[in-house]
């Protein structure tokens, strides 16, 4: 693994699709970039998605070539499993303090063979599958992970030492400890991405109590060919679901949970998943309960019409409560908005809560940029300079600035890279002007 150098032109925080795009755009312009991700693999949320709307292209097929390009780019240094502790302005530059978390193996000699994972006796819920699948205490994050290097979680380890014994390259190093590193960078791009609204935000929906009430990201994994079940099954009992409901605006557009904004992607990902469920399970009943469908992007309205034409029921109705009945089935109490608010009860095998997007990271204590009221980074010049933050030389890309879909995140990442490059050119020009002239 390459050591942290004294200086880089740019630091990109977050290795999701926005951070990768920003790093690639800067690298291609000739800037030296340090791309930092706190997780053991880059790829962010996108690499775990099944397909993207409205084209239904394979998500990881789009994401992984860019991940590989960033990892092999001569001017991008990838630093995974690393936390940014602080970023402090020094003149036009920034002093960066990093914590390099130990993987408990030598990254240079690990060949990603999986032997350690297969030898480990402990199975734990896998974060990549949102707990539905399992991994071991030492594991490679997933099949598309970059880098393809294992990581050991000591808190899950039974200290049997089997991983060390089976490693063909003897790369396991139990004595590793977290290391601190500092560097100086000329500019910073924050691309720290998203989480979905916590499943327990609306207790009346039972998201954290009922196993068959699931998050949309868990459904992405279930629908994926490399998902935890290999096909669509109920988490409670392995039943092939015959009736599936989507509850829209389950984690946004709701002042009662402190998330008043529209998350912009929920209508479209729900429509996409609903359509794919119709493809994956013959004659399955899929119903979307919504306040209104917001299909605003290129080709989105046509996609919405296609989903309805292919048999997905789209009902204007507000779900008030979900209860679990016998056999882990679910009973939804729905106010039908198109029928004068008539209240009905509908039974479904499986329910997906269309959770909203919230920021995955907050800058307080790390870097002195302001957040907006909604918790995303404040972009004071949102109309003309959407990537500008409240600190000169620090830019934001992707969902860290607010909810958006993948195309918008990539476009804004390009804009952030261009703004960061511009900042670097101006700073260099100013530095040259301030240098004392040589007198001959």
């Amino acid at each position, binding site marked *: 693994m390459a050591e942290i150098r004294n200086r880089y032109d740019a630091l990109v925080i977050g290795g999701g699709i926005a951070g990768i795009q920003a790093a690639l755009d800067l690298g291609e312009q000739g800037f030296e970039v340090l791309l930092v991700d706190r997780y053991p693999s880059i790829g962010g949320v996108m690499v775990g998605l099944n397909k993207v709307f409205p084209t239904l292209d394979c998500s990881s097929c789009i994401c992984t070539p860019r991940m590989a390009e960033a990892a092999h780019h001569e001017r991008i240094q990838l630093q995974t499993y690393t936390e940014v502790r602080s970023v402090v302005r020094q003149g036009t530059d920034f002093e960066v303090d990093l914590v390099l978390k130990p993987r408990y193996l030598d990254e240079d000699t690990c060949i990603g063979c999986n032997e350690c994972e297969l030898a480990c006796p402990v199975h734990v819920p896998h974060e990549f599958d949102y707990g539905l699948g399992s991994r071991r205490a030492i594991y490679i994050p997933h099949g598309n992970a970059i880098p393809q290097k294992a990581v050991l979680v000591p808190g899950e380890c039974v*200290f049997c030492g089997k991983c060390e014994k089976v490693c063909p390259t003897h790369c396991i*190093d139990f004595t590793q400890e977290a290391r601190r590193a500092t560097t100086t960078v000329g500019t910073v791009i924050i691309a720290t991405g998203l989480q979905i609204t916590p499943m327990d935000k609306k207790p009346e929906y039972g998201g954290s109590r009922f*196993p068959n009430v699931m998050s949309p990201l868990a459904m992405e994994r279930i629908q994926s060919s490399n998902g935890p079940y*290999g096909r669509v099954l109920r988490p*409670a*009992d392995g039943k092939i679901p015959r009736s599936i409901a989507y509850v829209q605006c389950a984690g946004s557009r709701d002042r009662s949970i402190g998330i008043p904004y529209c998350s912009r992607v929920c209508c479209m990902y729900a429509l996409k998943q609903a359509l794919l469920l119709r493809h994956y399970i013959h004659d399955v009943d899929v119903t979307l309960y919504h306040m209104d469908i917001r299909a605003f992007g290129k080709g989105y309205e046509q996609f919405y019409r296609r989903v309805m034409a292919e048999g997905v029921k789209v009902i204007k109705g507000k779900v008030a409560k979900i209860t679990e009945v016998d056999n*882990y089935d679910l009973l939804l109490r729905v106010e039908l908005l198109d029928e004068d608010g008539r209240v009905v009860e509908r039974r479904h095998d499986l329910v997906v809560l269309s959770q909203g997007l919230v920021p995955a990271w907050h800058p307080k204590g790390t870097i002195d940029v302001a957040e907006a009221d909604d918790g995303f980074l404040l972009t004071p010049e949102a109309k003309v300079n959407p990537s500008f933050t409240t600190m000169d030389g620090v830019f934001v890309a992707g969902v860290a600035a607010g909810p958006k879909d993948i195309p918008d995140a990539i476009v804004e990442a390009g804009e952030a890279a261009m703004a960061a490059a511009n900042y670097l050119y101006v700073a260099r020009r100013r530095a040259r002007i301030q240098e004392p002239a040589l007198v001959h």
Partner: protein
Amino acid sequence: MTEEAKPSAEKKDKPKRPIEILRDRHGGMSKELKEFFNEQQRVFKAIKTALKAGPKTVPQLAAECKLDSPKTMWHVMALRRDGDLVESAERDGYLVYSLKGEER
């Protein structure tokens, strides 16, 4: 120093193995992990034993092993991922699982 104490003193001088260094740094295996791990081994064994008698669905396995169904499902999927179980058929809307090599 008593005679009984001598061997342990010698043991102390012996350099620690790397796995022991890791264990000591993290305070050993927590009680929760120990219980979790033991329970996991018990559930895996119970599922495999139940399947020796023939293929079963997750609710059937849960009933036979006296486990709750979601927990059984998670463990069945872990065994499936390891290649110990395979899906052998579909019965009344559920998949039927068998031990690998014993599909009927």
